């Protein structure tokens, strides 16, 4: 964990997604790694500029689905064959074709829940406090119409003077220091 005092990073505000992507790409080439873009809608080009490609969300979805399928099928088998055997019109106790339907539903249920909760967990949400909310212009723009690039202070390459002059090369609307 980075120390929770001093400054969190430098936040540059841009008017358009193109300017943001350009600045992010340049920052990556200049060696900055600990940085993040904040946009009012998903900008895939920004993710590419951050070199962020792979997420583990699909894996969680798959695991959830497999667990749901196995759970539901085994549960029905155990209930119908061993725990509570009922003779329903002479059908076999292990009526696996009938068990497919609830198993199918639970596959989707478990996969869906693990996708949604897994996504939030990977994102570290809920996290109601974040240093960026201290920046005066962040909340006015990041969820509405402005595009932000934040160079974080725990990047080994980060120094406040250099980073500021680096960001100002891209003519942002503003560059502000974000305190913890």
């Amino acid at each position, binding site marked *: 964990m980075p120390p929770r005092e001093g400054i969190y990073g430098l936040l540059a505000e841009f008017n358009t997604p193109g300017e943001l992507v350009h600045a992010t790409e340049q920052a990556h080439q200049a060696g900055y790694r600990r940085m993040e873009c904040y946009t009012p809608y*998903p900008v895939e080009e920004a*993710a590419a500029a951050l070199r962020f490609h792979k997420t583990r969300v699909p894996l969680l979805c798959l695991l959830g689905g497999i667990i749901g399928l196995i759970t539901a099928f085994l549960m029905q088998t155990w209930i119908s064959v061993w725990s509570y055997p009922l003779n329903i019109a002479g059908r076999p106790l292990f009526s696996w074709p*009938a068990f497919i339907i609830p198993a*199918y539903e639970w596959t989707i249920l478990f996969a869906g*829940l693990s996708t*949604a909760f897994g996504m939030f967990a990977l*994102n570290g949400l809920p996290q*109601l406090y*974040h240093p960026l909310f201290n920046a005066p212009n962040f909340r006015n723009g990041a969820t509405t*119409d402005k595009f932000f690039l934040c160079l974080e202070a725990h990047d080994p390459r980060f120094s406040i003077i250099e980073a500021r002059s680096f960001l100002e090369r891209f003519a942002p609307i503003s560059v502000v220091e974000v305190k913890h």
Partner: protein
Amino acid sequence: MATKSPMHDPKLDPMIDPRTGEYAVIAPGHNFKSVTQKIAGIVLTSNTPLGWFGGLMVAGGIATLLVVALTWLFLKGVGIWGVTIPGAWGFAIINFVWWIGIGHAGTLISAILLLFKQSWRNSINRFAEAMTIFAVVCAGIFPLIHVGRPWVSYWLFPYPNTMNLWPQFRSPLAWDVFAVSTYATISIVFWYLGMVPDFGTMRDRAVMPVAKYVYGILSLGWRGSTRHWIRYETASLLLAGLSTPLVLSVHTVISFDFAVAAMAGWHTTIFPPYFVAGAIYSGFAMVITLAVPIRKFYHLEDLVTLRHLDNMAKVMLGTGCIVGYGYAMEVFMSWYAASHWEFFMMWNRMFGPMGWAYWMLILTNLAIPLTTLWSRKLRVNALFLFMLSFVINIGMWFERFVIVVTSLYRDYLPGSWGTYRATKWDYMTFIGTWGLFTFLFLLFVRFLPMIPMSEIRMMLPQTKIRRGGEDAEKVIQETV
């Protein structure tokens, strides 16, 4: 209209971008800020329109019918309804299937159209999903009260208990429990997930401390980080991929309630696809019922455009044709199967004492919509579509009535024939659920962003970025 419709003249139509020739989904002249202000402003205003209060009062008043009817039901039991032998399934099942069918369009719009990259659906998916959830709420009431002892309806779920009692998994009614509960859960999760970034916007734009606090909690601290967005988009896509087989399976499982029974008129293999198509048909009708007044009342014609109405009408036309094919096949198979019982059932359905219901169904579900929806002029006529949506939903209700009642009341043995007559409690319960649905929906449009702001932003031309990071819109403007 005597003049040529402007829909297809690129020079006249403001929706066609003169530079690229692309057909815009959102009216031109909007930017990130204006769409945000427009949508968030509906919720964040301190100036609630009087009409909203009026609507809420009327809807709440109708919903009290449901409360009264359910109270009496719990005191007296299901004997107050019109269900008897042989008509053991009545309004409760009809209304259950009708409501849950309506919900299906919401999932179709949010999931299947997302997978097919039909970005026009971004304007309508939020309230279509809300419609899904409220329709499932209304639908869920019926099986619970229909079980006779609703206070033990949790026995339907498999849970360890001291009675050593478990559900019977060879019954379609047990499958229903799994299908409908999964559907409700995933729909709510998908709906909430879609709203999280918008809650962030609401939190940041709210002025009232209470609103800031509530939307802040609901937003989970969303801050629009790009890494978050990528995981979020992946999760949305996966949920869409999961919801698609789910929505197809739910009405399939519901059709199994009928198709698995050895009853003339129910025991057919065409039921699953024909139920699913009917569900989407009625669901899109309900989306139109809601969208037309909302876009008028809240002046959202720029965001829910005539193109949306046109596309939804086309979906209704397509699913309506499938439903029509289903009806035709039912009639054909009742003859081709050479089964006396099937043949009699169909004859009785058409010309028996309740034949009027069958012809009502043909009139409202096939004759009126499938003759008029071919016309583009009518498909972009909001008032016409609004009225037609009611006609279709009446038709879809009659479809379920015909399937449930006319198959049951005259079965194999003439000695056991009877009839079915709904009581005032049946009607009160049903009408009460309309009130509940409208009540919930009015609360939704007042307190939650009814159009997904982040997805609308994605459809604006300003989002396009050229290779190398230039803004496409800026480049075009500079060259012009």
